[in-house]
């Protein structure tokens, strides 16, 4: 349902993601672990475009969220002048057999040969056509994927109830009555309905995070992204937050979770991903991942944290 294709992210000279591809299926619970600075949060944030990838594409089902990346579309590359030139150099006129074609496309990708400005009209039109057909407004996509932050990010100027109802009502997805009813149900579920008129500053960390989670649930999201949801919590509050996440997982919510809670990862994940140096170094079922790690860096990492 969420698909990340060959995503690179540079902050100036710092290369945080170096060509990450992954597909999150509906119902999956993917846990991403890795040392700090490995790019795991950046990857998560690329999934709802809080970070815009430098290269590569992010898809939500069949909706493209980023600009189209020419290197991911053979038909775009083939429309380029560079490809025609290579074709001519290879002594072929007009069409190429499949093997040559693959070879040339591979070379264009490897050597980063495309130059936006000199690829001609056909190239630009093909690229534009893809965006016209597939690309959606990122705000619409974000309504379908909720996000939970390390520092909760509840709106300080709004009460708990207003925090929950603001987005669905402002976006006209629900009436105030509908949103309030839904919020009431969710607050009752986490046992915090009596806090509905409090401001976030009056709540404990665990309460804030559980409210932040239900805030994203009011939108009826199809997937949830968790960015180190328990890292900023006092140890005794970690449990209540993980418990809520576990419940949502059991109900079948699609999730991507960046966390340092290994026990939780092993228990909840259907797939665990290890990131290091901006790449996915290993991914597997939790049993295999923790039982028989292959990558030496992962073995070292696990030996330190377990």
């Amino acid at each position: 349902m969420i698909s990340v294709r060959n995503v690179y992210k540079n902050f100036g000279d710092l290369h945080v993601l170096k060509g990450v591809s992954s597909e999150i299926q509906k119902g999956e619970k993917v846990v991403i672990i890795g040392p700090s600075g490995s790019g795991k949060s950046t990857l998560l944030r690329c999934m709802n475009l809080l970070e815009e990838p430098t290269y590569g594409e992010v898809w939500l089902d069949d909706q493209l969220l980023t600009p189209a990346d020419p290197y991911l579309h053979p038909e775009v590359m083939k429309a380029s002048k560079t490809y025609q030139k290579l074709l001519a150099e290879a002594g072929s006129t007009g069409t190429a057999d499949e093997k040559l074609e693959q070879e040339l496309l591979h070379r264009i990708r490897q050597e980063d040969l495309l130059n936006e400005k000199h690829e001609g009209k056909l190239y630009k039109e093909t690229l534009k056509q893809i965006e016209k057909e597939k690309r959606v407004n990122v705000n619409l996509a974000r309504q379908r994927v909720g996000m939970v932050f390390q520092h909760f990010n509840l709106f300080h100027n709004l009460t708990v109830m207003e925090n929950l109802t603001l987005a669905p009502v402002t976006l006209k997805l629900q009436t105030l009555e509908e949103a309030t009813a839904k919020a009431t149900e969710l607050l009752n579920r986490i046992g915090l309905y009596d806090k509905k008129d409090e401001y976030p500053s009056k709540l404990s960390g665990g309460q804030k995070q559980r409210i932040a989670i239900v805030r994203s649930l009011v939108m009826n999201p199809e997937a949830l992204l968790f960015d180190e949801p328990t890292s900023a919590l006092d140890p005794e509050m970690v449990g209540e937050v993980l418990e809520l996440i576990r419940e949502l997982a059991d109900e079948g919510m699609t999730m991507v979770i960046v966390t340092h809670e290994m026990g939780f990862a092993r228990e909840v994940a259907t797939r665990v991903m290890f990131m290091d140096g901006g790449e996915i170094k290993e991914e597997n079922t939790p049993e295999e991942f923790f039982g028989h790690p292959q990558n030496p860096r992962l073995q070292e990492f696990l030996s330190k944290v377990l």
Partner: protein
Amino acid sequence: MTIQSLSTKWNMFIDTFLNKGGYKEVVTGLINTLIIALVALVLGIIIGTIIAAIEVQPRKGKVLDILRRICSIYVAFFRGTPIVVQLLLGYFVLLPLFGWNLPSVAVAIIIMGLNSGAYVSEIMRSGILSVDIGQMEAGRAMGLGYGTTMQKIIIPQAVKNILPTLGNELISLIKETSVVSFIGVVDLYKAFRTIGSGNYEYMMPFLVMAVIYIGIILIITFALKMMERGLRASDKR
């Protein structure tokens, strides 16, 4: 100077003030001063907020670049020239040039509002930047647009952070209105000057004027403190 002559001066002032209708002039002046300062502040906050929102927008684009350019020219002009010059330009240059017919109070309000906007934009910008970036991210992550998140989440918090500074802006606006008589507006200064010019006795009128200015500003300072306390309801502090 003897006590006696001071007492004579005071009696002369009271006479002009009460018996010769001087108080009417002062009331007009007081109302004008307050109206000009308050409306100019509202205008300044609106303009300043719009400018600040444009300036902190991280995205690039042709339209945005042009807007940013316009904003920086505007701020440079209004911060770079004395307010008296701006009033004179507005009243004696722009009005006749465009053939507009506006009362001098309106011109004073507009010019002081524009002037204040330039200062408020800087105050507001620092206010917006003082709000945790996570607030914007949380809004955007739920599908709210940049403008909506700004309006509903960021700016309310920014305003709360900068309220003391905005209070200072109101106070300095009230004090700066004392130059509007350059374009013929009757403000506090002008009113007391008129009272004094009746018998060339300026000592008491200007002394009373100073007391009134201090009085207004103490009242406003107190009101702002109360307002700030109310707005801090969502804070731990």
